[in-house]
C-alpha cells in the first residue's frame, strides 16, 4: 500500500510522507497504550505517590509487593482469574465443536437450503448480545441454572462469528483435499477433525484469541446471572474489589486490573503470528 502510494515521488516527498505516517501511527499507539502504561505504573506506586502533584511513570518508592499482595488477599483474585480461564476454555471448546462441523457443511457440502442457512448465520452476526438477554435470563431461571457456571457458559456456546470465520477459511481449502480424504476412507466427521481442523489451525487460533478476549472481558452477562462471589469472572472481581475498597485504594485496584489483563496480553503475544495468518486467510499454499 505504502509502496504504491509513494511510488514515483521524489525522495524528499517520500520521506515527508513516511514521517507523517509514523506520526499518525505513533499518536494512535500512545492513545491505545497510554491507559495500560498508566495502569501498570499506578499499580507499582504507593498511595501517597499516586496523588502526588508531580507525575512520573517510574515509581520513586517501589510499592509493587504491597499493592499486588493486597489485591490478591483482599478478594479471592486468583479464584476470579481461574474462573475466567475455566469459563473461557469451556466456551471456546464448545464454540469450536459447533463451529467446525457447521462451517464444513456450509463451505464444502452440497445440500438444499445451504445458502438460506448461511444468510441466517450472517443475520445472527447482526443481533447484539443484549437483545436475547432477557429471554435467556428467564430460560435459565426456569431451568434453575441461575448463579452457576453453566449460566455464564451456555448462552455463548454457539458463536455465529466463529461459524462465519471458519466457513470463510474452509472456502479456501481446495476440494481435492476433501476428495482425497474421502477416497482414503476418511468419513465426513473424520474430514472435519483430521483434515480441516489442522489445515484451519491459524484461523482457529485467531478465533480462539478473539473468543478468549471477548469472554474474558465480558461484564454484562456474568453481572446479570451470577451473584455468588466464588463464581465471579475477572472483570466482576475487579468491580467487587472496587466496591469493597470504596473505589479509593487505587494502587491495589490497578494491581488487580493488571493481573486480570495480563493473561490477555500474554495470550495475544503467544498467538500473534498465527493470529495474523488466520485473519489474512490462506489455507493451503
Amino acid at each position, binding site marked *: 500500500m505504502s509502496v504504491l502510494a509513494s511510488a514515483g515521488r521524489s525522495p524528499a516527498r517520500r520521506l515527508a510522507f513516511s514521517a507523517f505516517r509514523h506520526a499518525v501511527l505513533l499518536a494512535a499507539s500512545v492513545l491505545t497504550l497510554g491507559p495500560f502504561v498508566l495502569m501498570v505504573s499506578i499499580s507499582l506506586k504507593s498511595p501517597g505517590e499516586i496523588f502526588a502533584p508531580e507525575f512520573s511513570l517510574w515509581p520513586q518508592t517501589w510499592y509493587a509487593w504491597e499493592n499486588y499482595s493486597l489485591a490478591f488477599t483482599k478478594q479471592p483474585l486468583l479464584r476470579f482469574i481461574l474462573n475466567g480461564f475455566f469459563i473461557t476454555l469451556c466456551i471456546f471448546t464448545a464454540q469450536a465443536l459447533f463451529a467446525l462441523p457447521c462451517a464444513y457443511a456450509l463451505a464444502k457440502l452440497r445440500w438444499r437450503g445451504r445458502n438460506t442457512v448461511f444468510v441466517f448465520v450472517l443475520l445472527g452476526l447482526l443481533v447484539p448480545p443484549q437483545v436475547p438477554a432477557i429471554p435467556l435470563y428467564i430460560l435459565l431461571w426456569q431451568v434453575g441454572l441461575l448463579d452457576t457456571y453453566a449460566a455464564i457458559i451456555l448462552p455463548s456456546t454457539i458463536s455465529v462469528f466463529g461459524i462465519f470465520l471458519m466457513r470463510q477459511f474452509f472456502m479456501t481449502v481446495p476440494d481435492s483435499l476433501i476428495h482425497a480424504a474421502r*477416497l482414503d476412507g476418511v468419513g465426513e466427521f473424520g474430514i472435519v477433525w483430521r483434515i480441516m481442523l489442522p489445515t484451519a489451525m491459524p484461523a482457529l487460533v485467531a478465533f480462539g484469541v478473539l473468543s478468549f478476549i471477548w469472554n474474558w472481558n465480558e461484564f454484562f452477562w456474568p453481572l446479570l446471572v451470577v451473584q455468588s462471589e466464588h463464581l465471579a469472572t475477572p472483570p466482576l472481581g475487579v468491580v467487587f474489589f472496587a466496591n469493597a475498597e470504596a473505589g479509593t485504594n487505587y494502587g491495589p485496584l490497578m494491581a488487580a486490573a493488571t493481573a486480570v489483563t495480563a493473561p490477555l496480553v500474554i495470550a495475544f503475544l503467544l498467538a500473534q503470528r498465527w493470529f495474523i495468518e488466520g485473519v489474512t486467510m490462506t489455507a493451503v499454499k
Partner: protein
Amino acid sequence: MASVEISKVAKTFGETAVLRSVSLSIEKGEFLTLVGPSGCGKTTLLRIIAGLETQDSGAVKIAGIPVDHLPPKRRDVAMVFQNYALYPYMTVAENMALPLVMRRFSALQRLPLLGRLLPGTTPIRAGIDAEVGQVARSLAIDHLLSRRPAQLSGGQRQRVALGRAMVRNPQIFLMDEPLSNLDAKLRVQTRTEIAELHRRLGATFVYVTHDQVEAMTMSSRVAVMLEGDLHQVAPPQEIYDAPADLAVAGFIGTPKINLLPAQVRGDGAFAVLDRVWPLPQVEALAGGYTLGVRPEAWTPLRAGGRVALCAMGGIVRHIELLGSETLVHFAVEGLQQPLVARVDPMVGATLRLADAVTFGVSPERVHVFDAQGRRVPRRDALEFREAAVG
C-alpha cells in the same frame, strides 16, 4: 486389476449439460486416457467413477459390479489429483499411511495417544510402516518420508501423491491431470515413469488430460471427449490416422490438420477449389465434403517433377523453423486460412517468403468427412492398398 463399465452416464450442473449419455468400457489392466479441452466433462466423468460425484442418470460398474450406491472408499479406486491434494500438515510418511490407517485400524485404535496403548495396534502399525517404506523406495522418495509437503518440490509432491495412491494396491488408478503442474522437462520424464508404473503394477489406469501428447504417448487407448460427448475411443495411432469426425481430427495433431472444402463430381472425383482430386478409397455420393490433410502428408512438388494425383498450389506466407522440421504456411486462393505443411529442414531452406509452391498429397492420406463432419469410411483398406501398389 478391474474393468470399468460406464453406461449412458449423464450429468448436468444447473443449466449446463456436462456429460450427455456417455458410455465407455475400460478393460482390465488398460491405460485409458480421457482427452479433451478444459470444460469438456472429462474430470466430471473421472469423479463419477471415483464416487465423488453422483451422475443424474446411467450406471457405473467396476469389475462387473454396480457401484453407484457405494461411497468412494468402498470402490477400491485411488486417485491422483492435479494439485496433488497432499495433507499439508502431515509428513510424507503420514500422508502415504493414511489410507492404510483408515482401513486397518478401528476407530478406537486411531485415537491419538490412547490408540497406541490398545492391544494389536503395534503390529498393524509396523506392517503399515513397512509397506509405506517399500512403496517409497520404489518411487525413490524414501529419504523424504519425514518431510512435509511444503518442503518438497513439485516433482517430489507428485511422487508422494502417486505413492499414496499405490500404497493400498487399488484395482483402479484414476489420474486427474497429474502432470500439468510440472515444468516441461519434468513432465516428459514423469510421463515415461507413469507408463512404466502402469506396466509394473498391471492395474487399470484411467488418465485425464487436456494434453494430446500425454494421451498419445502413454495410453493403450484414447477416448476423445468434446463438450460432454465421447467422440472416439481407439488406440492412439488410430485416433491420429483415422479420426472419427472433424472435431477429433481438429483436436488431435499439432499443427492442426488442414481442412479443405470439396464437392463430389459426377465421375466420383472431388473438386477441391480449382483442382480435382481423385480419391478412389472412398465411395462418395454427390454433395459437400470436407477433406483433411495432416501437415506432414504434404510433399513439395517441383516444376517439371513428378505429377501428384492430388496437389494444391499457393504462396508461402510464413516459415517456422523448429530445427528437426520446418513448417511452411502457404496461402491458397479461395481459403481464408493458410495451409500448413511440415517439411524437412533441407527442403524448407530452399523456400523463401512469397515463393509460389505446390504441395502434393497421396490420396490415401486424405481424410474425407461428410457434411455432418463424420468420417467417410474407406471402401476397403486392404483392397485399396493393393490397387495403389499395382
